[in-house]
């Protein structure tokens, strides 16, 4: 092993004095082993430089939320729906107003000494009739179905290898999401 090998990296970095550098210059012209080593160190230094850039690029990329593409897709779907159904209004079911006759019926008041009529037992979650009628109306038809492959939702490399799925969104005519389903 040549003694000069210990100076090769410093020579590469131009850190040697002019005399020392001249010695190394002369030596590497004659010594193939040192030339090879020099090429190796040079390659390693370049690879390390790129490695630093890779680390920086990797950390900077992680600042972007993984859900950003999903949100962007959802917003895009919303815009498409808005453009596809701009005039369509969902008519809400009519709410029945109490009639005049019903309003004029006198409310019986219990007389003194007479037991008050027992209150009708109402369930805690009982639903008024009008509300029940409104609940019967449901947007049953699916207006748009969107299937988004996983690789379109996430940046490259975010999904582990071998894992793949498709997100299916069913969107009702009123723009609400009816169903979100993931299938392989």
């Amino acid at each position: 092993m040549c003694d000069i090998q210990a100076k090769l990296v410093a020579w590469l970095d131009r850190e040697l004095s002019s005399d020392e550098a001249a010695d190394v210059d002369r030596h590497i012209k004659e010594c193939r082993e040192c030339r090879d080593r020099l090429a190796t160190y040079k390659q390693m230094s370049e690879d390390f430089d790129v490695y630093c850039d890779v680390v920086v690029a990797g950390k900077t990329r992680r600042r972007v939320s993984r859900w950003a593409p999903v949100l962007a897709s959802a917003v895009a779907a919303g815009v498409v729906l808005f453009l596809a159904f701009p005039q369509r209004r969902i008519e809400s079911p009519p709410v029945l107003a109490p009639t005049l006759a019903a309003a004029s019926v006198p409310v019986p008041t219990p007389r003194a000494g007479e037991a008050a009529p027992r209150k009708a037992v109402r369930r805690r979650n009982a639903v008024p009739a009008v509300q029940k009628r409104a609940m019967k109306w449901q947007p049953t038809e699916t207006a748009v179905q969107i299937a988004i492959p996983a690789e379109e939702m996430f940046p490259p490399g975010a999904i582990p290898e071998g894992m793949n799925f498709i997100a299916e969104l069913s969107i009702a005519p009123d723009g609400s999401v009816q169903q979100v389903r993931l299938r392989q």
Partner: protein
Amino acid sequence: MSDDSVPLSLPLLGLAGSSEVTTLYRELRKPLLRYLVCLGLSSDEAQDVVQDAFLSLQRHLASDGKQENTRGWLFRVAHNQARNRQASYHRRFSEPLDGGMDFLADDATPEQRVLEKEKFRRLAAAMRLLTESERECLLLRAGGLRYREIGEVLGMAVSTVGDTVERAIKKLAEKCNV
């Protein structure tokens, strides 16, 4: 890291008046960020540290402080601030090198991508085998600092820096079979 990602511009920091500091900021911001991120700081933390380092420089110069080697001084300040922030230095530095392979050209073939990825995975593994001073010397060297400046940042003799850099490069070359 693009120029757009800088959260605060230099004029907002009140440094616009100093042309020397402005020039240094333009020249050294990226190398400093790269050094700090490679040390294990997050991108946001690195931005903060760089801003703080330049603020310190501005204050130092404004108080009639003389600074011969400003580049080395900035790296030293940034290095010390990074050390203060890094409670979990080793854990974060040894994170696996996931993703981040987007630097490859779009026309790279899948085979080239796999080979490059494998090369940097080996390099990342070899980096974990280096001592802390070896890693720091290499990172500062990659930031363009001379051995004398590296010595100032890390508090080491120039000859020790030379030996450490050489040892680190040899170790990496052996582990990566370059």
